[in-house]
C-alpha cells in the first residue's frame, strides 16, 4: 500500500537523458526528501509525477492506481480523462517560483481552484481559504495582491492554495530556492508543521537542515539516477557512495 510508486521512469530531452530508470516508493504519511546536485533530474522527476513533464518510459502509480505506463513516450494506460484528473488531484504542488496568480488577491488565489474544479460554493471556499491562510500565518494579508507580498509570504500563499484542494500528497519543488535567506525559515516552519500533521510529502530541496530534521527518508539523486536512499542518519552520517559524500561535503 504505497501512495506513490514509480518504476523505471526514464526521460530524455532530445538526446540528453535526464532520468534513468528512477524507481521510488512513498508510503502514506511519509516525508521523503530528494537531494542532489543541480541537473540531477530531481525536479524533472517530481514534475513527471503530475504530468507537467511527460516521461519517456516507465510506470507511475498514485494511490495504488496505475496512471501511466509509458513506452516511447506513449501512455499505454487508457482511462477516462476525468478519472485521471481525479487521481492527479490527490497531488498538490508548490513551485520554486511560487507561480501565484498576480491578478488575484491571496484569498482569491486560494479560492480559485476549489470553486472552479470542485464546484465548491463561494462562501464555503472563502471560509476554507481564510482558515488556510491563517494557518500559514497570513490571516492579515487576505486581500493583498502577490506583488505586495514578500517571497516568503507568497510561497506560504502558494502552499495554502495547494492545500485548498485537499491533496493526499504534497510535492515541493525547491520551495525555498528563490527566497532571501531570512525568509526561508517561515516557509520551512509551515512545511514542518504540515509534516507533523501527517501529510505525505515529497520534497526536492537544498535545505539539508530540513532534510535531516523532518525527512523520514532521504533520496540522493545524481545524473538522473537514484544513487542511494536511507534515513537521514544513514545518508548524512554514513553515506555509501563517494558521490553522496562529495555532495554533502560541498553543501554542509
Amino acid at each position, binding site marked *: 500500500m504505497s501512495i506513490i510508486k514509480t518504476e523505471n521512469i526514464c526521460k530524455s530531452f532530445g538526446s540528453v537523458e535526464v532520468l534513468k530508470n528512477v524507481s521510488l516508493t512513498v508510503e502514506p504519511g511519509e516525508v521523503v526528501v530528494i537531494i542532489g546536485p543541480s541537473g540531477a533530474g530531481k525536479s524533472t522527476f517530481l514534475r513527471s509525477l503530475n504530468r507537467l513533464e511527460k516521461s519517456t518510459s516507465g510506470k507511475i502509480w498514485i494511490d495504488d492506481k496505475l496512471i501511466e505506463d509509458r513506452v516511447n513516450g506513449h501512455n499505454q494506460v487508457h482511462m477516462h480523462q476525468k478519472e485521471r*484528473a481525479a487521481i492527479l488531484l490527490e497531488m498538490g504542488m508548490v513551485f520554486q517560483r511560487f507561480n*501565484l*496568480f498576480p*491578478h488575484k488577491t491571496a484569498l482569491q488565489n486560494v479560492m480559485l481552484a476549489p470553486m472552479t*474544479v470542485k464546484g465548491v460554493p463561494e462562501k464555503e471556499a472563502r471560509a476554507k481559504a481564510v482558515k488556510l491562510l491563517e494557518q500559514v500565518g497570513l490571516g492579515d494579508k487576505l486581500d493583498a495582491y502577490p506583488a505586495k507580498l514578500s517571497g516568503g509570504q507568497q510561497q506560504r500563499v502558494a502552499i495554502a492554495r*495547494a492545500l485548498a484542494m485537499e491533496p493526499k500528497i504534497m510535492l515541493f519543488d525547491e520551495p525555498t530556492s528563490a527566497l532571501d535567506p531570512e525568509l526561508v525559515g517561515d516557509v520551512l516552519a509551515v512545511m514542518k508543521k504540515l509534516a507533523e500533521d501527517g501529510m505525505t510529502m515529497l520534497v526536492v530541496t537544498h535545505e539539508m537542515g530540513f532534510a535531516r530534521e523532518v525527512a523520514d527518508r532521504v533520496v540522493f539523486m545524481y545524473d538522473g539516477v537514484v544513487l542511494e536512499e536511507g534515513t537521514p542518519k544513514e545518508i548524512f552520517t554514513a553515506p555509501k557512495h563517494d558521490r553522496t559524500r562529495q555532495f554533502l561535503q560541498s553543501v554542509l
Partner: protein
Amino acid sequence: MMDAINKIIGWMPALIQSTGTTLALSVLSVAAALIFSVFLALGKISRNAVLSSICRAYIFFFRGTPLLMQLFFIYYTLPQLIPALNIQSRFFAAWLAFTLNVAAYLAEIIRAAIESIDKGQMEASRALGLTRGQAMRLVVIPQAYRRMIPPICNEFVMVLKDTSLVSIIALTDLTYQTKIIASNKASALVYIPAMIIYLVITGVFTFIFNRLEKRLSIYE
C-alpha cells in the same frame, strides 16, 4: 486671415458629418475584428494542427496583401466572380474589408500577449486541476489583457488613419470629403481643419486607452 477662418468655419458641417463615417467605420471594424481575432489567436495557438494551419494561413494572407487591394477585391472583384456577392452598401464593403484585415493584426497582438505570460501560470493552474481551457480563461487571458492594450491602441490609431483609403470606393469619409471640398472650392486650406479633426480623435482615443491600461494595472 479672417477670410481663411471664415471659409474653414463654413466647411465644418460637411467635415464633421463625414467624420461620423470615419469614426463609425474605425470603431465598428475594430470592435468586430477584436471578437474575431480572439478566435483566430486561440485557433493559431491551439494544439489542433488543422485549425492552427487555417488560422495561420488567414493571418498570413491578410497581413501579406495590401489593404487597398483587399478593399478593391471585396467591392469589385467578388461581385465579378460571384454575382450573388455584390455588396451594394459602400460602407458595409469597407467595414468588411477593414474587419477582416484588422482581425489578422489583432490576432497576432493577442497571441503575442498570451504567449508572453509566464509558463508557470499554466503549470500552477494545471497542477491545481484546472483544464487548459479554464486556465486560459481564468488565469492567462486576464493577465494578457493589460499587455494587449498599448498595441491595440496603436492598431486603432493606424486603422483610423487607414480608413482614408475608402475614398477609392467613393465612400464619403473625412478624407474624401476634404478632397471634394478642396477641388470644388479650389482651396487647399481645408486640409488644416481635417488634420486637426484626425488629431483630436486619435488624442481622445489614446487618452481612453491609457486610462483603461491604468485601470487594469491595479495589481502590479
